């Protein structure tokens, strides 16, 4: 490789750096270092003149390495790499020394700060000499998509993709489509029937030539990487009529495995399972769908009580809000009042979360139909007890009512527990299969909660709907279609870009000890049985370097984070 010719640029960042760090002093010291051709200071290196300065110097002194001592590389590394590209040298011949966030902004002592800044800059100069030119890699994009889960999310995603003319494999664990939505009667706030929402989509999916439906099946294994996955799909339980295992090639995976409702019997004080007419929201939905609301004894209840946040927003169970229960509860109030106008509905809540479009109006309407809203405190809870023979109701709910400050008891013949959402028991298994992570509550983690809500840290794996967090139908559908859109974008590009920074195995050094094989979080390391060599799949590798550090024969190299580069840095900071 050509003799390194390094240009070093120390940024004043206005006064941000210069007011604490003696930039010119550093500049003179650095200029004396071997291989350093030019060293300059400038007011704002990130400004256009600043970047132009680099470009000119590269051309004038035909530099082949550049170091900028300025802010955090997390801030401007991309900016300067672009500058190098325009100057016509490989962007990876660049190093950045962080002398703002990690120096001038956190230290007051000028000398100490200057010394530190000098050290890190020196380290960068020594390191950059070992930097190597890296090129991005490309792989083909398979236009097929695997959709896990046949709920409203899965259906929406599948249709979106298939309608665009791409093959979709829709895998559903149960023997029917529709997921949790299929268990619901009407939907808040517009009171559309869930049936109507679903039937049309289900029939379209069933008849769609581009969608292969796999019922009673689940993902058994997923190998490969974005654009080139191989998925093994097999029957949930191998009984006679169930489909046999089948492996399909897909470019992307959309995980829409949905949620499971909270098990109300875990909350002992509501006596669910003991008191016959304390039921969960889903049991009530069933009544509504069957069109007969009655107690276990077959009587028509007169007093209804709906208790919110069962298992949600509590110290003891889930801390989060399940988001849909409030509106569902109001929906029940509506349905009860229209079915039994003479009945009374008490709605016992912590806070009324009416955040969505049309939700506030829905809330008002349900108060107009004389739903009695009663507020209880977070981390307190209503207690349900049987009523006395004299009472005209079956149960009494005692609660410390916040808005009146009174301890009250509410008459009830039927109590509906608004059970929250929680991650499915099998969620962790799926997470391991497709290599995505879960948060403390078991929900799948998106690659960025705000800016990248449907992608995950594993490229080509997308999440949509309530497997990512509790959400209502509109949000779920929006996510599903967003995921589909992201995939369609990839398909349109036909090629997958693979980041240039990844680990690679030197076959001549590797002796096949397989120490590294189990270390990769992305199973990017494959073992070649013939050659007795381990191999890193660069498309899967995310460059953490765990295998590199572990390799006992230094056969694995972390591109752009090689031992030489880091050792040089160590010498640099300590010199």
């Amino acid at each position, binding site marked *: 490789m050509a003799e390194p010719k390094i240009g070093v640029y120390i940024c004043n960042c206005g006064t941000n750096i210069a007011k604490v760090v003696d930039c010119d002093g550093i500049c003179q010291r650095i200029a004396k270092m071997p291989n350093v051709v030019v060293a300059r200071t400038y007011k704002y290196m990130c400004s256009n003149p600043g970047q132009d300065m680099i470009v000119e110097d590269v051309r004038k002194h035909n530099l082949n390495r550049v170091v900028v001592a300025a802010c955090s590389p997390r801030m401007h590394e991309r900016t300067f790499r672009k500058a190098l590209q325009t100057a016509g040298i490989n962007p990876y011949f660049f190093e950045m020394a962080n002398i703002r966030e990690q120096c001038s902004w956190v230290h007051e002592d000028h000398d100490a700060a200057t010394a530190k800044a000098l050290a890190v800059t020196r380290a960068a100069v020594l390191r950059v000499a070992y930097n190597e030119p890296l090129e991005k890699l490309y792989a083909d994009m398979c236009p097929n998509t695997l959709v896990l889960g046949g709920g409203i999310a899965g259906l929406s995603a599948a249709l979106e993709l298939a309608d665009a003319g791409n093959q979709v494999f829709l895998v559903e664990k149960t023997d029917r489509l529709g997921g949790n939505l299929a268990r619901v009667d009407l939907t808040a706030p517009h009171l559309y029937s869930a049936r109507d929402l679903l039937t049309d989509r289900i029939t379209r999916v069933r008849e769609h030539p581009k969608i292969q439906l796999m019922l009673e099946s689940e993902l058994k294994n997923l190998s490969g990487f974005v654009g080139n996955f191989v998925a093994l799909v097999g029957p949930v339980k191998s009984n006679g009529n169930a489909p046999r295992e089948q492996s399909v090639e897909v470019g992307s995976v959309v995980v829409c495995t949905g949620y499971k409702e909270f098990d109300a019997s875990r909350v002992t004080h509501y006596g669910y399972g003991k008191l016959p007419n304390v039921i969960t929201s889903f049991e009530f939905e069933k009544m509504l769908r069957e069109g007969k609301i009655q107690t276990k004894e077959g009587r028509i209840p007169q007093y209804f009580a709906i208790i919110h946040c069962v298992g949600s927003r509590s110290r003891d169970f889930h801390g989060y809000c399940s988001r849909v229960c409030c509106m569902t509860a109001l929906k029940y109030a509506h349905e009860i009042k229209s079915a039994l106008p003479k009945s009374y509905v008490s709605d016992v809540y912590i806070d009324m979360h009416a955040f969505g479009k049309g939700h506030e109006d829905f809330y008002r309407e349900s108060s107009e139909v004389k739903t009695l809203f009663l507020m209880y405190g977070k981390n307190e809870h209503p207690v349900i007890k049987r009523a006395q023979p004299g009472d005209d109701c079956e149960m009494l709910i005692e609660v410390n009512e916040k808005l009146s400050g009174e301890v009250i008891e509410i008459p009830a013949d039927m109590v509906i527990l608004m059970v929250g959402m929680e991650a499915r028991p099998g969620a962790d298994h799926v997470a391991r299969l497709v290599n995505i992570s879960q948060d403390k509550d078991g929900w799948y983690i998106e690659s960025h909660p705000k800016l990248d809500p449907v992608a995950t840290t594993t490229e080509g794996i997308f999440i949509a709907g309530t497997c990512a967090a509790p959400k209502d139908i509109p949000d779920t559908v929006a996510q599903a279609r967003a995921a589909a859109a992201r995939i369609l974008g990839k398909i349109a590009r036909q090629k997958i870009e693979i980041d240039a920074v990844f680990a690679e195995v030197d076959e001549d050094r590797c*002796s*096949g000890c397989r*120490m590294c*094989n*189990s270390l990769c979080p992305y199973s990017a390391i494959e*073992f070649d049985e013939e050659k007795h060599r381990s191999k890193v799949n660069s498309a899967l590798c995310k460059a953490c370097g765990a295998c590199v*550090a*572990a390799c*006992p024969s*230094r056969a694995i190299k972390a591109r752009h984070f090689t031992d030489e580069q880091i050792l040089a840095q160590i010498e640099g900071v300590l010199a």
Partner: protein
Amino acid sequence: MSPKKLQIALYWGAGCGGCDVAVLDTNEFILDVAALADIRLWPIAVDGKYQDVEKMVDGELDLAIFNGAVRNSENEHVAKLLRKKSKLLMAFGSCAHMGGIPGLANFTTKDKIFATAYLDNPSIEPGNHTVPLPETKLNGKTLNIPTFYDQVYKLDDVVEVDYYVPGCPPAPNQVKAVLLAVAQGQLPAKGSVVGASEHAVCEDCQREKKEKKITRFYRPWQIIQDPKQCLMDQGILCVGAATRSGCGVRCPNTGQGCRGCYGPLPGVMDQGAKILSSVSSIIDAKTPEDIQEILEGAPDFAAIAYRFGLPASLMQRNVSP
């Protein structure tokens, strides 16, 4: 064969003598050696005095094979002497190469060693505090013995070394190969390791290797081994993956984990650190407690990782003042 015979010297520094035996283990080949070389110094086999060597002109020897580490002033003296008199100096065996087993003494100090050997030893008669001194006055005369250094050095710490032949001891076939190479003048660039391969022991090890996860360590006698399976996969600590091959997989073939005598692979700065890094990586535990529990199975890990290479490691020795 060259008209003039090769002039060679073999020396035994701080070591067990196994290296000399390894030379003899070349069996009848030793006769060929004798045929093609004059052995000018070989304390274990042929008679010869340091004075004879001192009398030589510089560079008179073609090859000096030095085994054993540098533990005392005599070792250093002879090392420098041979360096002066010989065209080529070869660090022969793990001790000369990396410090070897004697190098483990660097985990402690001269004083501690002396205390154990000459003071606190049960076989010492009470009240006797005799400790070897470099210089002793005895009725008017001074008696000198070599100075025992505070730490063990590998050969190239004291003199420039041309070639390294690793192994504890070097495998006879490798010895043979090296000597032939010398004889035929087919040696690689100076400073390189000869008589060993560029790959790890695993390369030559026939045991079947799988993905590794260690849930507990076993000493070889603690379990019934599967002779076909990688020792590490069975939880038996084997540092073969971090060790040059060339030995012919001697230890693993006998069901012992490789102990690392052939030293680090090319470009590896610190063999022990690499052993440490790879072994710890595959421990199958997440909490400090669980990890600790598994590590208990590998007592005195430092000694395992640096069994042959302590003086050649980055730390070289226990550095506590």
